[in-house]
């Protein structure tokens, strides 16, 4: 993070005073730290998108096809015909301003084009000009403008400065959802081959190898076995998960981030320990080895292609139902898109916990259960032996991930689990949690290193709320149920609140979980002592 200003300098530099000039007249600044590197041809071609060749957003001339205006116009028209949401969101905004300061990117950058209302106007102005009577007659007076190359640059700059978190949509009197607007904007850019590599590479990887990180089947197995060695060292219990096993009762799918890097790996170990303690009949799949879906950040077709593997694999393996791990946008796809796109899953059964007998009627059609729903039910039925004191060195707060909060409503289950596995839990301020939660600043495919400036600014509202509970209650651990969070929070916390770590909920569960036949635990899943060493007391 060499070029970044110091935290207090960044904080002081944020100015929400609008500029003198109208936003329509301001050229979009394509500055380092605010734009992600463009998608590479090899990834675009795997997904059958247009390949523009080598280019950089900083270039004066962008590699647009000859008929780019026609492509955008026709693409826009097609989407208006396919999505009522788009039409309604284009027509009904009254610019009341309720959304203006709800966006974490606006709060952190002060850039007026990051106000949700203006972000949508970037698209709306073209809509008015090209598709409405008033726009055709009144032109600029109705808020319309011509589609120019500058507009395309602006779209690229600002539709990749939106994390599709939907916070603004909560406050909008008409429920206008900027995520939907951004998704449409990105689809249009995709028609020109303009995407970012941090999204397109995971999409292409997932398409071919089954997961975003491009981990091949044998490597997946090796990694899991390696994590099992760690578990054995900590607990004395040897776990042997199965892969692609036909006839298992449950297929377990989690984001690849969970088995790729810290601290996600601890959460993954947590899942395996929980399943072992229960004697669950489950299997992992190498083909469906990704819970997340960066297709959601690309186009609805790409989302469908990647998501199709879940049901296809469940069918091939003949499992009864699917259990899903901790991930944010994954659950938006599962809750709001999967069944519609790739269902009906009539070859599966309504999920039933083999341990408690609870039937998950809320998932009677998708046949897929969230792991915190599953675990909350176990705890409620006293099926887990827990020793929450093993988490006593953690003063925990909980971050609601955007999508489970605002595209699902998974609010109480994770809290119930945390409260049962930890003794010290503190909520962040009310306007920053639950449906009003703030994005980690890196959602929707923006968790790449080159936009660190944007990520730290966008993550400020979240980090500042963590700082508040850190100072007030001594909170030192930020729990979340999202793999992107687990990748995004460590640098975010490091920058704004360096004393706070990041964890998934099932890492906390596994710390507290007393497994049959385990040896006395001296460390947590991170190989750190269970109790904080009381150096200061000794020295004092």
């Amino acid at each position, binding site marked *: 993070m060499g070029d970044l200003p110091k935290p207090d300098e960044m904080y002081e530099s944020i100015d929400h005073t609008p500029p003198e000039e109208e936003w329509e007249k301001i050229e979009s600044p394509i500055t380092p730290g605010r734009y992600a590197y463009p998608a590479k041809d090899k990834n675009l071609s795997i997904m059958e998108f247009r390949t523009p060749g080598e280019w950089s957003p900083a270039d004066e001339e962008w590699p647009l096809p000859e008929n780019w205006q026609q492509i955008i116009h026709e693409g826009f028209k097609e989407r208006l015909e396919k999505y009522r949401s788009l039409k309604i969101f284009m027509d009904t905004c009254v610019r009341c301003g309720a959304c203006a300061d709800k966006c974490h990117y606006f709060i952190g950058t002060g850039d007026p084009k990051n106000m949700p209302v203006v972000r949508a106007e970037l698209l709306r102005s073209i809509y008015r000009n090209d598709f409405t009577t008033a726009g055709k007659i009144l032109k600029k007076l109705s808020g319309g403008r011509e589609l120019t190359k500058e507009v395309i640059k602006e779209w690229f700059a600002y539709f990749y400065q939106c994390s599709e978190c939907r916070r603004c949509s909560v*406050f909008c009197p008409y429920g206008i959802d900027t995520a939907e607007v951004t998704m449409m904007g990105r689809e249009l850019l995709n028609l020109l081959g303009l995407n970012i590599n941090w999204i397109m590479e995971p999409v292409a990887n997932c398409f071919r190898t089954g997961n975003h990180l491009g981990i091949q089947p044998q490597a997946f197995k090796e990694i899991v076995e390696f994590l099992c060695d760690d578990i054995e060292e900590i607990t004395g219990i040897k776990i042997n998960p199965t892969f692609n096993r036909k006839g298992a009762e449950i297929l377990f799918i989690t984001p690849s981030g969970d088995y790729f890097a810290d601290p996600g790996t601890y959460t993954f170990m947590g899942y395996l320990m929980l399943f072992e303690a229960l004697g669950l009949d489950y299997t992992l799949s190498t083909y469906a080895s990704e819970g997340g879906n960066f297709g959601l950040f690309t186009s609805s077709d790409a989302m*469908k292609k990647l998501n199709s593997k879940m049901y296809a694999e469940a069918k091939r393996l003949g499992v009864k139902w699917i259990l899903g791990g901790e991930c944010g946008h994954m659950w938006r796809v599962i809750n709001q898109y999967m069944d519609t796109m790739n269902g009906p899953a009539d070859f599966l059964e309504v999920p039933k916990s083999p341990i408690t007998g609870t039937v998950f009627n809320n998932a009677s059609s998708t046949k897929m259960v969230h792991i915190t729903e599953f675990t909350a039910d176990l705890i409620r039925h006293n099926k887990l032996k827990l020793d929450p004191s093993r988490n006593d060195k953690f003063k925990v707060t909980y971050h609601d991930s955007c999508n489970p909060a605002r595209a699902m409503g998974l609010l109480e289950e994770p809290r119930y689990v945390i409260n049962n596995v930890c003794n010290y839990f503190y909520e962040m301020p009310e*306007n920053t949690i639950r449906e009003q939660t703030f994005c980690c600043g890196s959602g929707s495919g923006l968790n790449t290193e080159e936009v660190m400036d944007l990520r730290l600014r966008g993550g400020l509202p979240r980090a500042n709320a963590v700082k508040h509970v850190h100072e007030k209650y001594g909170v030192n651990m930020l729990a979340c149920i999202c793999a992107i969070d687990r990748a995004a929070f460590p640098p975010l916390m490091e920058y704004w609140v360096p004393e706070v770590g990041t964890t998934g909920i099932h890492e906390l569960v596994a710390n507290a979980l007393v497994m049959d036949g385990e040896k006395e635990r001296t460390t947590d899943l991170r190989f750190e002592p269970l109790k904080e060493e009381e150096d200061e007391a000794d020295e004092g």
Partner: protein
Amino acid sequence: MNVSYLYSLLAVIILGLIAYVGAAIGLESLFGIVIPYLAILAFLVGFVNKVLDWAKSPVPFRITTTCGQQKTLDWIKPSTIDNPTTTRGVIIRMLLEILLFRSLFRNTRVEFKGEKVSYKWVIWLWLFAIMFHYSFFVVVIRHLRFFVEPTPFFVNALETVDGMLQLGLPGLFISGATLLGATTLLLLRRILLPKMNYISRAADYFPLFLIIGIALTGIMMRYFTKVDVVKIKELTMGLASFHPGIPEGGVSALFYVHLFFVSLLVAYIPFSKLMHMGGIFLSPTRNLANNNRMKRHINPWNPKVKIHTYDEYEEDFRDKMKDAGIPVEKE
């Protein structure tokens, strides 16, 4: 500072003058009959077209914005209104949105206080919006007196409540004053708050000035210039019964300005942001239940996409899978 409101103000003043002068030079039939009928026609055709156009596009996905706990395990209390799973819940959620502006009521304002970023609950926008919409509604209902004979009982009842302050003669209607007050506040908000000023355009100011113009001319006619109400009713009843005519002896030119503003507003609705009055009913993030996992939603254009099948995948990795002891379909 953005002064685009001046264009809208100027436009409304000029339009008002046109009607005033037009009525004075003998174009009463144009402003009193032709334009109101055209305006109603434009409204009806435009509104219906717009709604049909919206309805023509399907709702491919159920993308509810959830603002509360989902329905899952029996012992976790679901938020049946903010995260509805039933039609009943959706209806209540929509009623709260449409009648009470529930989402707007959540509004907060971000403030940097020292090292803390805080989010203060602010109700001003909600308050002005509620005042504006309800007073406008009451004013419209009161005006039924001019279009229906005999005057319906609820119009009389409403007038009694609206005039309960019993101030002045003719008695002050609270709704008229709040309408003018709320529109003025909404206007000042746009002009004076920097962020609002920055996002506001001519299309935002125009309807506000138009409505202020309507309220002002209405108030002037009732309380100050005291126009001949009987003659006006003769004209409006003529319009309503499709036997239009201009009353003998004429009506004050101010009335024509009032009527012209109303005509403009009515005709303007379908072609502007004022269509939010229809759009609010159709917003897919609000009017759908969050019951996707229980009930499959159908996308009428669900496309066939090329997927990477398991067989293709195994083809790519079979040897590696076999070496690692991962079961395969084809040995």
